């Protein structure tokens, strides 16, 4: 019989469910690609975490214990690069891949093959970064910001880092284009922009930010490359260039990048808190506008990272006030999350614990950010451990805790099994205790004047450093418990219903657990 099928899925081999290695290499399925992103980012988290252990081992006591100073600089640099570009960003893209099509009622991402390609760019980039330790001169030690002129002078490891950043940037751009077109074009009938889940909104804005700033990063590292090898003098003062220009260009990318790493975290938490408070999100519209405001403001605050380069007082004042302004929309968000919980019928399963933990520690990170924003104070504490404490409160307790919350929240939907709640809670409590043990004391170290990026320090800093190192080892080991909980959940456990959380709202919960390989082949109608 001659068969002329449009997209009859019973006969369409393009929709077959491939198995084995080829499934993962060639897959265009958003769930498979999301899974690969998440495993890749976890592997990078462990790699970056191992480097952090190396840093904390050296700083456990004063004096030089394990590493040469140059290698210590390589550890801090690669820890930053791997965590930012290899762990946190891909993890959020993994969440976007898994969740956005299910949350908007789409069958897949808009450009499924490009989605596969954007993932498979990441492993080569990661290999470049990690193997740069083994080339002559070792990895780059210029800091994750790759400041010129130091980065212009470094060895071959710097070139590998530049290529890796380029590749990861290309991956991010393709991922963003995919996410933005999926959200804008593939929403189910009836799902207007103002009916979208907050996670989708935050990713829409994040993708826009990524598209806007990625060429700036690409330009910055390309100029470094041409200064290193092709005789240009963008950042070489001897040739008429300006090293401070690099800082401006880098931070024009770098500050929006901070929000690229936190806005999707806001989205995850905005899904979880209403679920476990059993109330709708308080002030949905203001949440959307606050997210957009943060994104817009992120373009005009970059120079608060460089108050000490010698800018005029008017510039310092502008960047100080602009930075402080960000506290307003961020405060709106914190207020709304608290108001959502107010008089809610709350329970504290692991996703909620991580979300409430996020709320406490991220708010602290926000406040220390305000302290850093005040120019005269920043001039005192810049390049000290206070800054290290601040951004770890935002990126670990902010982004990472939200990622953990999101994994526990959607794991039943992804795997079809409930995770071990006791172990999940243990993971939370150990994480929050060890996290604070590690980073809270760094505030005191910074205020007392301990500079960052040094392998040795004066004896008066010894006690707090020992506490921080013990906390860091505990925090690192705790993440192995997380791995165990996830693997255990994948392998089996109590069967998860379609909607394991009774307060959950959204299209993803209308699908069975685990979500079928092809979900929403035709869009549902949103009333």
């Amino acid at each position, binding site marked *: 019989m001659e*068969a002329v099928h449009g997209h009859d899925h019973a006969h369409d081999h393009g929709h077959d469910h491939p198995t084995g290695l080829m499934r993962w290499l060639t897959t265009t399925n958003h769930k498979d690609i999301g899974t690969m992103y998440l495993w890749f980012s976890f592997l990078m988290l462990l790699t970056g975490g191992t480097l952090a252990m190396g840093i904390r081992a050296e700083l456990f006591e004063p004096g030089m214990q394990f590493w040469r100073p140059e290698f210590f600089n390589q550890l801090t640099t690669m820890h930053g690069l791997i965590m930012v570009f290899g762990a946190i960003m891909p993890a959020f893209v993994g969440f976007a891949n898994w969740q956005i099509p299910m949350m908007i009622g789409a069958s897949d991402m808009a450009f499924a093959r490009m989605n596969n390609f954007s993932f498979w760019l990441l492993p080569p980039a990661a290999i470049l970064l990690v193997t740069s330790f083994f080339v002559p001169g070792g990895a780059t030690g210029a800091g994750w910001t790759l400041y010129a002129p130091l980065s212009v002078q470094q060895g071959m490891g710097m070139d590998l880092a530049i290529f890796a950043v380029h590749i990861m940037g290309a991956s991010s751009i393709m991922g963003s284009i995919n996410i933005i077109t999926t959200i804008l074009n593939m929403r189910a009938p009836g799902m207007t922009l103002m009916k979208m889940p907050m996670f989708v909104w935050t990713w829409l804005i994040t993708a826009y930010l990524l598209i806007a700033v*990625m060429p*700036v990063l690409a330009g910055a590292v390309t*100029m470094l490359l041409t200064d290193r090898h092709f005789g240009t003098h963008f950042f070489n003062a001897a040739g008429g260039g300006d090293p401070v220009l690099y800082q401006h260009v880098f931070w024009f990318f770098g500050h929006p990048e901070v929000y690229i790493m936190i806005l999707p975290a806001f989205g995850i938490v905005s899904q979880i808190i209403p679920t476990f408070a059993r109330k709708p999100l308080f002030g949905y519209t203001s949440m959307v506008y606050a997210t957009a405001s943060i994104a817009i403001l992120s*373009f005009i605050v970059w120079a608060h990272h460089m108050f000490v380069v010698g800018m005029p007082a008017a510039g310092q004042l502008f960047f100080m006030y602009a930075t402080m302004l960000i506290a307003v929309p961020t405060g709106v968000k914190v207020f709304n999350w608290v108001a959502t919980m107010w008089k809610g019928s709350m329970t504290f399963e692991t996703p909620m614990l991580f979300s409430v933990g996020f709320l406490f520690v991220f708010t602290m990170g926000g406040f220390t950010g305000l302290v850093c924003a005040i120019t005269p104070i920043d001039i005192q504490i810049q390049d000290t451990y206070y800054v290290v404490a601040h951004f770890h409160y935002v990126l670990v307790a902010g982004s990472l805790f939200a990622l953990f919350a999101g994994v526990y929240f959607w794991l039943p939907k992804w795997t079809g099994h409930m995770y071990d709640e006791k172990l999940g809670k243990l993971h939370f409590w150990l994480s929050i205790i060890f996290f604070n043990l590690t980073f809270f004391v760094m505030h005191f170290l910074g205020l007392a004047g301990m500079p960052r990026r040094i392998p040795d320090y004066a004896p008066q800093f010894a006690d707090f450093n020992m506490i921080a190192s013990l906390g860091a080892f505990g925090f690192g080991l705790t993440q192995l418990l997380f791995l165990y909980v996830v693997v255990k959940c994948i392998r089996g456990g109590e069967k998860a219903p379609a909607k394991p959380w009774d307060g959950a709202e959204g299209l993803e919960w209308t699908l069975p657990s685990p979500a079928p390989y092809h979900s929403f082949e035709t869009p549902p109608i949103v009333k």
Partner: protein
Amino acid sequence: MQIAEVDASGYRLICRRNDSLSPRGRRLFFASIVVVSFGIAIAWWFRGAWVVLPFAVIEMAVLYIALRVLESHAGDCEMVSISDDRVVVERYERGRRSRHEFNRYWAQLVVRRLGPGDRCGLALRSHGKEVGFGDYLTDEQRLTVASELRRRLKNY
């Protein structure tokens, strides 16, 4: 999306692809991102960092191609029409048209169950030829259309 028209001359079902972004929305979105991206790149050009601009151009070109691909699918639709003794299934995909004609008396509607619940696929079959349709309908809509078509084919 489904539009069914029934008039004196017969029955006509039009199913369109779900596109939540209108052509105007697409243009507005692209214009906004071009202004922001090129605005940033040109500002850096004047500060000496001209290398940002070529990357912005490449990125906008990729985004433009992506939006054009979406646009090329915007008119995709399926039409099933019944008039007198003819049943016609037409598909438009990226501007290409395919047309399959059946004799109304011989045409059979096939409803395939594709999974648990109401998951199903529709096809018309006659004289050894089978044509699938209903890709842009929800399962619920497919079942409604199936019962309507079956009634009209049976009553001929």
